[in-house]
Each structure stands twice: as C-alpha cells, then as structure tokens.
C-alpha cells in the first residue's frame, strides 16, 4: 500500500500494537506496550544494550564509589531535547527528582541528587544497591516541562508527533540525535489495534508492516512475506498459587501440582514449541543470575505427584479455580492445558476468565483468588524485579508466600556489592523458591516479531522493547 511505499531516504513503518500506552509521561507509563513505544523517545543516563548490559546514553561516563552509595555521571555534551534545548545537569537532577517524587521503582533508596557542575551530576544513596544502575534507564526530561502526558519531549532517536487514542501514535525521526547514525526510518507509526485478531487480519492484509505477535498468530502468516524473529519475551509465565488458600498452604500439594504440570507439553501445545521452560521467576535473559539447573526440577511425574498428594492428605484430589485475565489468549490456552493435566492426578480445576481490571483488583491487590496464570516481566533489568514479590509482607506479594530464609538471602543479595557473591545469593534464593514450589514456573514464552521482508535490522533486547532506530 501507499503507506509503505519506500524511497530509501524517507522510509516509514507501521507497527501494530495491541494495547494503548496508558500514559505518554515516562514516569507514569507502565504498560509493556507503552514502554515499548517510549523506548524510542526517551533515554536515561544509561540505556539497555542488546546483551542486557547498560551502556551510557545521556551520560558520557560514570563512576561509582567503593561503598556503592555514590554515583557520579558526566553528561554528554551534544545531547539535545526534541525541542532543541541542550541537556544540562539541572535537567538531569530535575528528572531524577521527579522519579523520586513519583515513587518510581528503585528510587526509594536515593538520598539526594546533586549538581556538581554544568555537566556532572552526583547521586547519593541511603544504602548500596547492586541493581541501582538498572534503574537509571529512567527518562531524562527537560526541566519544568509539564506537558509530557500530551506532548512528550525526550532525547531519543525519535520524537513524538501525534497520538490519536485508539488509532495511532506517530513518531518522527529526530534529526538532532546525538548519535549520527541514530534513526534510519523517517516515520514510525504505531497502529493501535483493537485486539489480537484485528492485528492478525491487518498483518494478513498488509496494512501493518511489523508487529509482535502470538505464537498462534505467527503460524497463520504468509512466511514468504515476513521475516520472523524469535526472542525471549522476558517474562515468566507461571501458575501462581495462593499460598494461604487451603490446600496450597501445604508445600506437598504445591509440589504435587508442579510435578503434574508438564511444561514441555504446554510449550508444544500452546506455543508450537516456541518457549523456554523455566524453574524460577527470573527470566533466562538475565543470564548472570538465572539458575538454569532448576528448569526441570519438577519433571512431569504423575506417580510422584499422586503420592505427594496422598501424603498431604488429598488422596482423592480436590477442586479449585484458576483465574485468568481474558485478554491474554496464551494464558487462557495454557490454563486449559493445565486443567487437563491436573485432571490426571485427580484435581478438578475450573477456569474463570476475568477482565484485566478485575484481575488487578481481585487477584493482585486483594489477593482474593485461588490460583492464576499470568506472566511477569520487569521494567528494570534486575533480579529484584522478579524476586521481590516473594518477600514476606511485600506489597506485591499477592502469592502470600512467606519464608524467612528466602527473605534473608534476598536481603543479603540486594546489598552485596561483590558480584560473584551476589550471583550466588540470588541463585540460592531461586533454589529456595523452587524447593518450596512457591509458584509453578512454566516458561519464558518466546516473543515473536514479524516484519515485512523489505525491512531489516531488527534487534532483540532482553527487555520488551522495539528499537525502531535500528530498523532499515
């Protein structure tokens, strides 16, 4: 179609996206798709790289004090905001202060932010946090500009052009980007689709050039038209059991369920094999911390599951309800498979679909559920993002999981600055969770991006982002 008509210098792309960004303000945007879009508009002091490490972005370089509580950043000199103003240390301070006051994750340990000189900013922490650098991907915005929600201004390779709710969000090439080979495409249009099926139809009819799609969807596409990229989704799909709910307070019951659930069958059936079995809440993409050995700790074993159930006193099984957010086809399908697998050990599970807000309020906030299947990702690439919700009393511990040993290991890992130690502690924490079968960890669902053959340069990240700047 005419939209994709390409002259090499002013090539455009239409990227289909299924959920609307809930806010264009980088401190408020929380949906995965919202972050995916804003990744191209905003940059932090540092930026995630392909391999999961952090490279300098708005900052040119940085130093960390030995005790890990003071970070000092040198601001790059040729960085300009989209409105043409130069980025100053004042802007950086303003941005970080805004993050603190907005209670952005990880910033609760920041004591203060000081402007050392025009180009240097110093951040003081209340205590050390080995993960802190990951939080500094948070956006740098112009000082005292308070129209971010309507017309966001950042420093990224693309600048915001327009947003029409439920229609599209358009980005335009930022010609002043500090990296000369920043963006190649002239315009990126994120087309906001009403649902997966609509996205699939648009891909099939060609009105969308690229999108991140379901496994079930990709099999329906014409392979000769699209390049297909498979990567980790960087979220762990898990069957979460309410550890306070009657049979699930018994570790044996949880283990029995873990033995009954066959991850490979789920991956094969629901995802056409496109997924990685996991045994911990941490994504495999976080290679350093991820404990690979736990993936098959509970290999499918019906007999063992049955005998565990018997030991727990549920020889004849029991019944419970799995609550699933209905907008995720993957989870609904997985739930169906899980139900049939649990039937093998005599457990009757029913499925209850709820819409997302109901899930958030009933399951996540009020912890009023028995079991649920969802995937968790993290906005920052750090183990705490994945493990934090198992800490006793944590506000997001909707699993009602509590284990003192885990709490102390987690605590230690967080403040240990020695990388080797830290890795070991985190792995220990994962082992505890696995042993307790706190949840049934299923898989890191592969995230599949399809893109018309005329485009190239797709880059995958260990985070859920779309790097439009790399596309040619």
């Amino acid at each position, binding site marked *: *179609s005419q939209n994709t008509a390409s002259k090499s210098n002013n090539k455009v792309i239409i990227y289909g996206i299924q959920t*609307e960004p*809930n*806010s264009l303000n980088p401190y*408020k945007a*929380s*949906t995965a798709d919202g972050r995916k879009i804003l990744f191209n508009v905003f940059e932090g002091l540092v930026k995630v790289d392909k391999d999961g490490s952090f490279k300098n972005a708005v900052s040119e370089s940085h130093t960390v004090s030995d005790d890990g509580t003071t970070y000092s950043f040198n601001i790059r000199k040729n960085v300009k905001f989209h409105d043409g103003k130069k980025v100053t240390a004042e802007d950086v301070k303003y941005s970080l202060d805004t993050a603190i006051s*907005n*209670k952005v*994750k990880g910033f609760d340990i920041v004591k203060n932010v000081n402007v050392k000189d025009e180009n240097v900013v110093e951040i003081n922490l209340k205590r050390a946090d080995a993960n802190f650098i990951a939080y500094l991907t948070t956006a740098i915005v112009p000082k005292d500009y308070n129209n971010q*929600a*309507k017309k966001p201004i950042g420093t990224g390779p693309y600048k915001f052009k327009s947003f*029409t*709710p*439920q*229609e599209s969000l358009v980005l335009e090439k930022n010609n002043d980007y500090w990296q000369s080979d920043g963006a190649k495409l002239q315009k990126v249009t994120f*087309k906001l*689709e*009403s*649902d997966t*099926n*609509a996205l699939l*139809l*648009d891909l*099939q*009819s*060609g*009105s*969308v050039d690229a999108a991140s799609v379901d496994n079930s969807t990709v099999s329906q596409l014409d392979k000769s038209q699209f390049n297909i990229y498979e990567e980790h989704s960087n979220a762990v799909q898990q069957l979460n059991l309410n550890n306070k709910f009657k049979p699930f307070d018994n570790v044996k019951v949880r283990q029995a369920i873990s033995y009954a659930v066959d991850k490979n069958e789920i991956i094969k059936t629901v995802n056409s094999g496109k997924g990685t079995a996991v045994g911990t809440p941490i994504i495999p993409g976080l290679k350093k911390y991820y404990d690979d050995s736990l993936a098959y700790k509970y290999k499918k074993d019906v007999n063992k599951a049955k005998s565990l159930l018997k030991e727990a006193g549920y020889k004849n099984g029991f019944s419970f309800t799995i609550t699933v957010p209905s*907008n995720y086809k993957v989870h609904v399908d997985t739930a169906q498979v899980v139900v049939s697998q649990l039937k093998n050990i005599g457990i009757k599970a029913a499925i209850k679909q709820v*819409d*997302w*807000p*109901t899930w*958030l*309020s*009933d399951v*996540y*906030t009020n912890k009023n559920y028995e079991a649920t299947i969802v995937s*968790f990702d*993290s*906005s920052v690439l750090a183990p705490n*993002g994945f493990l934090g919700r198992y800490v006793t009393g944590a*506000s*997001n511990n909707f699993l009602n999981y509590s284990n003192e040993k885990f709490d102390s290991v987690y605590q230690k890992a967080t403040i240990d600055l020695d990388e080797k130690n830290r890795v070991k502690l985190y792995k220990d924490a994962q082992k505890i969770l696995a042993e307790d079968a706190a949840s049934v960890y299923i898989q890191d669902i592969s995230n599949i991006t399809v893109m018309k053959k005329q485009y190239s340069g797709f880059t995958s990240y260990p985070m859920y982002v779309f790097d439009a700047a790399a596309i040619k």
Partner: protein
Amino acid sequence: MKYLIRKILTLITTLFVVSLLCFGAFSVVPGDPASLILGTEASPERIAVLREQLGLNKPLFSQYKDWVVNLFSGNCGQSIKYNMPVKNIIRGRLPVTLILSLMVIIIIILVAIPIGVYVAKKKDSLAGKFVNAITMINLSVPNFFLGIMFIWFFGMLLKFFTPGGYISYADNFLNFLKFMLFPAIAIAIPHIATVVKFLKSSILNEMKKEYVRTAYSKGNTKNSVLYSHVLKNSLISVVTVLGMIIAEIFSGSIIMEQVYGIPGIGRLLISSITARDFPVVETLVIYIAFVVVIINTIVDIVLQFINPQVSIK
C-alpha cells in the same frame, strides 16, 4: 406542544435511569483505574498518590455528582485514562459511529424494502423462495463472523478495501465512506433480513384485508393496489421494527468497530470499560441512550405521518 413536553420528560427520566444504572454498575464492578494505570509494579503508596490526583478517593457517588455537574456545564468531566476532557475524546468519534449507523439504516431501507416487496409479490415463485432462503441464512450468522468473512472476501480476495486501513473522515471523506461501507453492510445484513421478513408478512397480511378488496372493486390493477394502498400500511409495522432495530444497530457497531478497527464510540466504550474510566463510560452511555430515544421519537413522528391513527398531539 404537549407531545413535546411529554417526550422531553420521558427522555430525561430515561436518561436519568440509564445514568443511574451505569453508576450502579460501576459501584459494583471490581477494578481500580489508578492501579490499572500504574500496572503491576506500582507500590501502594504510588497508587494512593495517583488516586488522590485523579479524585478517586472520593466516594463514587460524589464522583457521579461531579460528573452530573460537569455534564450540565458541558464538558462531561475528565477522562481518567486519557487525562483529557471527555468531550474532546468523544468529539472525534461520535461522527464516526453516527455516520456508520446512518449508513446502516440507509442500507437497510434501500435494500430491504424493494426486496420485501419483491418477495411478497413473488412469494410462490422460485426466485421468491430463493430470496426467502437467503434471508433465513442471513439471519443466522453471528454478526462478528459475518464481519470477518467480509474482510476476507471483499478485503483480501477482491481487494475492494484495505482491511485495517481506516481513513479518518477528516482526511478524506469519500474514502472514509468507502471503507465504512463494508462494516455497514455487515451490520445491516441481519437487520435487512429481519425487515424483509416483516415487510413480506406484513404485506401478505394487508393483502388479506377487506380494503384491498375494495380497491380491486374500484378497478385498480394489482400493482396499483400494492403500491398505492397496501405498501403504506405495511410500512407502518416495518417502521416500528426499524425503531426497535436502532438500539441493536448500536450493539452491532460496537462489535464491528472492534473487528474493523474503526475508532468510533463503540470501541471507545469497550476500552473505557476495560479502563474503568467512569466519566467516559457514563457519558457514552448517556449519548447512546440519548440517540436511541431521539431516533425512537423520530420513528414516532414518521409513524404519525404514515399512520394517521397514531396521533402525537
């Protein structure tokens, strides 16, 4: 005049009941817009801050009161999800849905009435029976499925339009209409079938009445009896049916907007419900109810024109 006052009073009470229903609905559904906005990673403190900012800490009833006050001041409140005046969000979409619905109604009238007359005239011929069967089939296909089949057939196979290639009416009105034609037909088809069925049986019923014999006794031909005597009377029941269909057309367009990716108020309604965006939903519901009531009033007036026995005075 009395009619007008009565209609306005009915309208107001109906709208009031509708808005109360909507309010009641919201007071019982689970879900909190603030935690929706902030997602799973938000800390309770952060949610509390946002709730405060959005005014969600006030009891729902006072939110309703605010909304009513806002409604009378003309801007219908502030959308929680989009953080802009509801008026601005709806302004761009209302025409889309209205035009879509209007197209549906026009298509229904243009297609169903000739077919209905034809079927009634040829009720015993093969062609008539064939049209009859088609009508029955059309009545039995789920709406969304029909929409998808249209996309596949007219969009992908015949390339009459680009699926997903919605064009805003502000950009190019003709292309907009061209795009909307297919969802409009898809919404219209089951209703066409209904109207055809009604018109046919209504014509056949009228044909049995005595005044038809009177008309023949004056020396009218078959056609002149049909067109100058029977048709008008048969249309009375069809207009009533049309009036009842209106509300269904809206429901149909909600689904079809979803299938075709049309940014109308149907899609907005669904996404606002999912976002628990009370002011938007409340306003949309009132809009829809308003339009439905207004169209029913128009139907009343039309009825009065063709059926002198119905008096609106």
